[in-house]
Structure formats: C-alpha cells, structure tokens
C-alpha cells in the first residue's frame, strides 16, 4: 500500500489544510493526477500524485489541518490492484475481480470540464462545494445568483474564480471601502486571508534568511549584445506567440553556469549539500503584492524554447495561484528579475535552505569600452548573493564568470 503524504512545498511550510479531495475511494490514480487541493501559506495548491493505483481510503477529512508528512490517503499500487475491478459507485471500496481494465482517464484529469459536461439539471437550493464556499466567503463573493457547473449544478471552485475574474474590481480594489455589508461580521479585513498568509510566508522565510544566512554580494555588468542579437534572429522567424523573452535565455545561462559551479546549486543543512538536479526558482511578482516562486525543473537540460514555453504556462498560473505541488518547493537556486522599467540592480535575499540567488536588473543601453573603443551596448547588471557559510567569494566569482561566458556565447546554450 502506498502512503500518500502531505507534501512539503518549501522549507517554510510546516502544515497544510486539506481543502478538497479530487479523488474518492475507488478512483483510479495516474501519475500526475491532481488528488487534492491543499491550502498553504502560498495559497491553494493542487496536489499531484506520483504513484499509480487505486485510491483505497482517505485518512484525512476535508477541512483538517495537518503537519507536513502526515499520511493523507492510502493508494493501492497498480500491481496489487490488477485483480481489482473499479466500481464507479460512490464511496464504495472496490471488490475483487479478475481483470482490471484501466480506462484512460482523460475526463478524470480535468474534473472541472467533465463536471461542466455533466451539468444538466438545475437545483432550486444553492449547492456549493466546501472549497468554493470558503473561497467565496473569504473574498466576500455573492454566489447566490450564479449557476454552478459542478455535479447536479453545484457551485465549484472554478465558478467562483470565474466570477472573481469577471469582477476583479469588486473583489480586490473596492473591497476595503465596503462599509459593513448585510453580513454583520465585526472584523472586516481589507484583503482575503490568502494574501495575509502569503505575506506571512514571505515574512517568515525572509526573516529567517536575513537572520541566519551571512550573505556575501558580488556584482558584474554583462554585455547583452550577443544574447539580444541571438534572440532577435530567432524571433524574426517566429509567429508572435512563439517569441522568446530575454529572461528565457538568462534562466538557461544561469542553469548552465550552475552546472559548472555546483557548490551554488545546493542547500545548507548544517553543511553544504549539493543537489543533483538544477531546478531554477523564478520569482513571479503578483500585481496585488506578494511573490510566488515556481520552479523550472532541470533547466540546464531544457532548450531555451522549452523554458519560454514553461514560462508562458507557469507565470499566468502562478499569478492566479494555480500552481501544482511539483512546481513549488523543489527549486535549488533562485532568480529574481526586476525586468524593464524597474531598478538597475537588485540585491536578493537567499531563499533558505538554498545558498544563492541571482538578481537581474534592467537591460539598458550603456557606454561600453571594448578593445580601446567606446560603444553603446545593451548591458545588464547581474548580482549574486551567496551564503558565506557554504561558499566563499571565489566560488561566486567563478559563477558570474561562467554566466557571462554563456551570455557571450549564446549558441552554446
């Protein structure tokens, strides 16, 4: 029997609340399926499962808050389950049978859509899932007039989110001004608790970082002419949807440089522990405040094109708090980028237990002396903050040199 546990989505996560089970006992579980929604300080996260089998039993009920590592459910592995037939009857534990034909759960993978198809009947009373109800209440959304798309017309998470997107002003901006609505709640908070929790998560990990990690800082200005030409050449041949942004090239160059200086792709847990995979955490700023840190897994092995595709998928989901467990908490190094129109330089704080963070400022045209000549070139100011317990300045310096080497030779990326 496989024990499915509350995953850790970052060093600062101690517990999580199981908000909604997406799979019920008897359901077939495939690798990558979303098994549950868990509320963490980083918002609601869809939890994926990396085993295959049949969900045997829920051990934690919806609404329960449990520490990381708690067994949430038992999954019967496929080998054992081979002799078991899947009964679709609700809540029933499957019975023994000869053969198991596993239907390809295309519909299962997108529960929201499947529910939309199933939706036919209208219910006179408001049916709403616990999760949807909680989101609605937290955001003070009136759901009495919307039509649910869940089973039997019940309102599900997606419906509330749709409503929030369609009326973002009501949901976010005007909220603080709302004088006591009909509901006589004494404590009207200016923002949804999810935002407060996110703020607290950032506060706790950054305080820990600043208190415990002796940071050292290095800085290097890098000429971006070659990298920008490389991008321009590629973008010329592409439809607009496939165009690359400079950040994709920067992520790849950082990953390759880490491959050469592995002491920075590591964690500090009493001693330096190198990580085998290079997973780049990428700071995504939210318009309403706060940051989220999704990871680009194995970035050193992915072509720049693929990194851009991942960003196209990841950034909007990060901003909508729709990340999956596999995309959080696995980063081994962090990049923060202020991008255009912002600061020239950024000096980051390391996300513990990592040992380094690279900060990219704005790419701007500056006078650059080269071979005795002065020219105007696009440059970027790159900073590295690293943990002095784990490495010394020489390592950091090597890393910046390696990064620069890749940016000057983009064909090697």
């Amino acid at each position, binding site marked *: 029997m496989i024990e499915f546990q509350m995953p850790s989505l970052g060093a600062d996560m101690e517990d999580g609340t199981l908000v909604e089970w997406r799979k019920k006992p008897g359901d077939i579980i495939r690798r990558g399926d979303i098994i549950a929604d868990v509320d963490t300080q980083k918002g609601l996260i869809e939890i994926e499962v990396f085993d295959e089998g049949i969900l045997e039993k829920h051990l934690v009920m919806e609404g329960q808050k449990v520490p990381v590592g708690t067994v949430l459910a038992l999954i019967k592995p496929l080998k054992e389950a081979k002799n078991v037939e899947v009964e679709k009857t609700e809540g029933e534990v499957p019975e023994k049978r000869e053969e198991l034909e596993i239907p390809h759960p295309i519909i299962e993978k997108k529960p929201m859509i499947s529910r939309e198809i199933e939706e036919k009947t209208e219910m006179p009373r408001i049916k709403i899932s616990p999760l949807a109800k909680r989101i609605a209440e937290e955001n003070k959304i009136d759901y009495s007039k919307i039509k649910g798309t869940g089973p039997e017309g019940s309102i599900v998470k997606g419906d509330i989110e749709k409503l929030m997107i369609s009326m973002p002003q009501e949901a*976010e901006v005007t909220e603080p001004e709302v004088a006591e609505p009909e509901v006589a709640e004494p404590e009207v908070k200016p923002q949804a608790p999810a935002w407060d929790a996110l703020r607290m998560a950032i506060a706790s990990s950054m305080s820990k970082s600043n208190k415990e990690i002796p940071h050292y800082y290095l800085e290097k200005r890098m000429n971006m002419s070659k990298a920008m030409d490389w991008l321009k050449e590629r973008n010329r041949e592409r439809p607009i949807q496939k165009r690359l942004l400079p950040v994709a090239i920067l992520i790849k160059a950082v990953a390759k440089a880490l491959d050469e200086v592995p002491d920075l792709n590591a964690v500090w847990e009493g001693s330096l522990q190198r990580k085998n995979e290079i997973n780049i955490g990428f700071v995504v700023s939210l318009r309403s405040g706060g940051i989220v840190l999704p990871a680009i897994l194995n970035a050193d092995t992915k072509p720049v094109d693929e990194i851009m595709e991942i960003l196209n998928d990841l950034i909007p989901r990060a901003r909508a708090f729709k990340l999956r467990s596999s995309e959080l908490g696995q980063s081994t190094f962090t990049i923060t980028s202020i991008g255009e129109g912002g600061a020239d330089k950024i000096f980051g704080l390391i996300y513990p237990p990592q040992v380094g963070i690279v900060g990219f400022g704005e790419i701007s045209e500056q006078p650059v002396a080269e071979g005795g000549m002065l020219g105007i070139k696009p440059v970027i100011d790159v900073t590295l903050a690293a943990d002095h317990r784990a490495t010394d300045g020489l390592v950091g310096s090597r890393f910046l040199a390696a990064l620069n080497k890749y940016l000057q030779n983009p064909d090697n990326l």
Partner: protein
Amino acid sequence: MSEEEIKKTIFQLLKRIAPETEPSELMPEENIREALNIDSFDALQFIVAISEKLKVEIPEEDYGKTTNLKSLVSYIQNKTK
C-alpha cells in the same frame, strides 16, 4: 477600423492584464507599460492578444512603435488599412 474601436479593444486587453488600473485614463503619449506597471512578460502577452484580436502582424522590430497609445493606434490603423 475606427480609432475608437481600436482604442476600445486596447483598453479591454490592457484591463485584462492589469485589472486594477484604468487604461482609458492613459494619456496619448504616456508610456503604457510604465503607466500601468506591466512587466516584460505581460507586455508580450498584450502584443500577442492585440495581434490575434485585430489580426495584425507585429514584428519584434516594431515593438518600439507600440509603447504609447497614440503610436499604437496609428500603427494598427496603418496595418489594417
């Protein structure tokens, strides 16, 4: 397509990216990205959305012509003539 129609589409798409802002209050020569605090990723999404919605091809070297409302509208008008 009339200037008003183009502007309306632009405002709609900007509003989608930056819902807490009021794009219709943009000054004609104000830098859109700076005024609405749009990063490079969202800027690209905006250009993609404009090109899909108004069926105009916007090569990368023309991005400079899309920075403010006035130049963007006239750029689209020229392209859709």
